[in-house]
């Protein structure tokens, strides 16, 4: 008869064996398709069998526009169906990177935020497109910063490509913040940040029931972090020194503190009560409900502002546009605007045929007529000629804001530690905005905690 100890030992042995099996399994890189080599000879690997080319993005209007554009692609490749799977924005990073962690993805083309590239590249999750880009992408057709921000790693500075950088993605959707002004209530569009605050304050005082400002403050993804970065940029601050990997003493220098003070003590009092957890949808809703004088929003998320069904500002788009003015962000000590948008990439774990199809889609997407169609559907293309074309500028009343902002774009760290860094920033800026933490203390905490993350990674 077996003793209890023997039985326990058997269970432990089985568990240990399973652990060993799993550990061995963990070493398998699981790459389904190919890496850089596969990116050069993809045309030979295209198949005539049915293929579902699947993207993953977060739920917003451009995701549906991309699926619509995919139907155009199916016209030249009838065996291919383009599917854009969406997740809530708060789950976007996790939905992609948990699958990367499993080394098996149910998508072929992840749409990555520009800052996610470092994490994906360092972990070997996305296909190296350097040789493909050299052969099939006309780099001169793009602003160098687009190619750098949406696809290269290590990220280069604006217009200064470095030989070390390799390409892992191509621009899909350009984006930045636009200022949305109630032109029926504010006579002149403010040109400086200080003027903007003054105009918002005046409008709030003159219109009882309305608030002066609406912007992203939520403790989610990069919401509050981008808001601080924007004000930091406008007041001449810097987020870090990329050469020395130094944050402490830079983000919380005099300009940084001024920016935090403006944000918390001058801008926050002009926002609606309880807006401390607002992000994209809530800002749009406040503008649509006629509750705010000036709002700040990503261009890619602004299509909803023109929908008479969800707006109280007018019964038609024309009536709404009589009240709303879309403008580039005001300048102050500097003129930076935040870089939004995303690049398209290829999962290293996608089947070889899907990877080949993805590369073919990328090649097709570079054509000016395709990018024009993308703009008509609501996307913001990357090509300079399309961005300057009437077709793009006329496609939406806020498109010109993006074209006018190109020279002012600034991104933040695309390091592998990005999610940790942005979480620290979002949480502490949100704390300062909601009065949980003193603004200066919050900024110093951001600097110290972010520096610790960078030091750990050195």
């Amino acid at each position, binding site marked *: 008869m077996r003793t209890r100890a023997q039985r326990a030992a058997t269970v432990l042995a089985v*568990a240990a064996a399973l*652990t060993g099996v799993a550990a061995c399994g963990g070493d398998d890189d699981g790459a389904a398709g190919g890496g850089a080599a596969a990116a050069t000879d993809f045309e030979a690997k295209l198949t005539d069998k049915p293929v579902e080319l699947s993207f993953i993005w977060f739920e917003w209007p451009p995701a549906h526009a991309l699926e619509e554009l995919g139907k155009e692609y199916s016209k030249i490749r009838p065996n291919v169906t383009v599917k854009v799977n969406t997740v809530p924005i708060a789950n976007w990073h996790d939905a992609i990177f948990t699958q990367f962690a499993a080394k098996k993805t149910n998508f072929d083309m992840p749409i990555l935020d520009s800052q996610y590239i470092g994490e994906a590249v360092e972990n070997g999750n996305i296909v190296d497109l350097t040789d493909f880009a050299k052969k099939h992408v006309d780099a001169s057709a793009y602003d160098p910063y687009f190619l750098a921000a949406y696809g290269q790693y290590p990220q280069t500075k604006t217009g200064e490509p470095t030989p070390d950088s390799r390409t892992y993605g191509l621009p899909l959707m350009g984006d930045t913040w636009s200022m949305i002004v109630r032109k029926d209530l504010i006579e002149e569009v403010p040109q400086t940040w200080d003027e903007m605050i003054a105009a918002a304050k005046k409008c709030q005082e003159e219109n009882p029931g309305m608030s002066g400002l609406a912007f992203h403050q*939520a*403790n989610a993804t990069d919401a509050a972090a981008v808001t601080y970065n924007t004000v930091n940029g406008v007041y001449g601050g810097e987020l870090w020194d990329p050469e020395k990997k130094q944050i402490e003493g830079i983000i919380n220098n005099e300009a940084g503190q001024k920016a935090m003070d403006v944000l918390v003590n001058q801008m926050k009092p002009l926002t609606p009560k*309880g807006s401390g*957890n607002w992000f994209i949808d809530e800002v749009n809703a406040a503008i649509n409900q006629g509750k705010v004088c000036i709002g700040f929003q990503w261009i890619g998320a602004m299509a909803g502002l023109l929908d008479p069904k969800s707006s109280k500002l007018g019964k038609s788009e024309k009536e709404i546009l009589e009240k709303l003015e879309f403008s580039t962000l005001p300048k102050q000590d500097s003129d930076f605007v935040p870089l939004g948008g995303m690049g398209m990439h290829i999962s290293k774990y996608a089947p070889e045929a899907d990877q080949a199809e993805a590369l073919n889609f990328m090649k097709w997407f570079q054509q000016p007529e395709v990018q024009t169609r993308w703009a008509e559907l609501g996307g913001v293309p990357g090509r300079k000629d399309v961005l300057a074309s009437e077709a793009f500028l006329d496609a939406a009343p806020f498109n010109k804001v993006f074209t006018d902002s190109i020279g002012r774009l600034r991104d933040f760290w695309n390091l592998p530690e990005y999610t*940790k860094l942005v979480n620290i920033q979002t949480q502490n800026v949100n704390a300062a905005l909601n009065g949980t933490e003193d603004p200066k203390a919050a900024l110093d905490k951001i600097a110290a905690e972010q520096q610790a993350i960078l030091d750990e990674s050195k």
Partner: protein
Amino acid sequence: MADTASASQLTPPPAARRFRLLSDRRLAGLFISPALLLLLFLSIFPLFWALYLSFTDYSATRDVPSRWIWFENYGDLLTSPQVHERAITTLIFVVGAISLQTLLGFTIAYLISRRVRGRGLLTTLFLVPMMLSPVVVGLFWKFMLDAQFGVINSFATSLGLGSAEWLTDERLALLSVIVVDTWQWTPFIMLIALAGLTAVPKYLYEASEIDRASEWFRFRHITLPIVWPLLLIAVLFRAIEAFRLFDLVYILTGGGPGAATETLSFHVYKTAFLGFDTGRASAYGVLMVIVVIVLAQFYLRYLNRLQER
């Protein structure tokens, strides 16, 4: 004789006679083996695996081999001010939510147990919140508690009470999470308490009535001592659930404002999925399991002593 013969006809032959290899013991083992295998793969193996990972710097996404770092993760976590803050937030939540739920749950059960007509319907209605998904509950409470567009502020304003920042005010946010959790889980305590209350023998009340005992005396010396052990079991289950609260925080506040409502479980999630510090997150999870086991042991010993009296 006839009876004996028919009895022997009715008795089934032993299993061993039908299938020699299939003894009763083996048959029993065969029946429980699917459940055991499931338990092994879904609970025991992940537990051992997490325990192993907790001693490494393993990251689920980083493409580098992990290092064995002994108790470094445990040391970092136990000395981290952030973890201490989250532990206090979790403690406040657990104590606040469970106290409120116990008080309300028992009161409702007591009132229902005294009401004869419509008791079944009332009980069913009270149980509805418990049957909803926490994510759904979180979403509709988020809309209701919204400071600008929410129905609660709208109602309060129409009554002249003014509006409050339920989810973004540091003092109110945790209270809002407690209230929402209480709304959903009070019925659980109520249900257990109701089972206890209906189990109190009626003759005890009848005897006390003959002795002209007061209502309070009857409650204090008859009802409560009988229901108390059952109620404590309900509290134990709820406390363990509350200790690992994640979904409501994720949906309602995202841990904010700042980190004012960030519980331990939410912090584990951030450690595990923002930057994928899998080893550290595993150590965090193991520590939480240890805390729950230790507290549950103290609690169960108290419960056993209570039942032995």
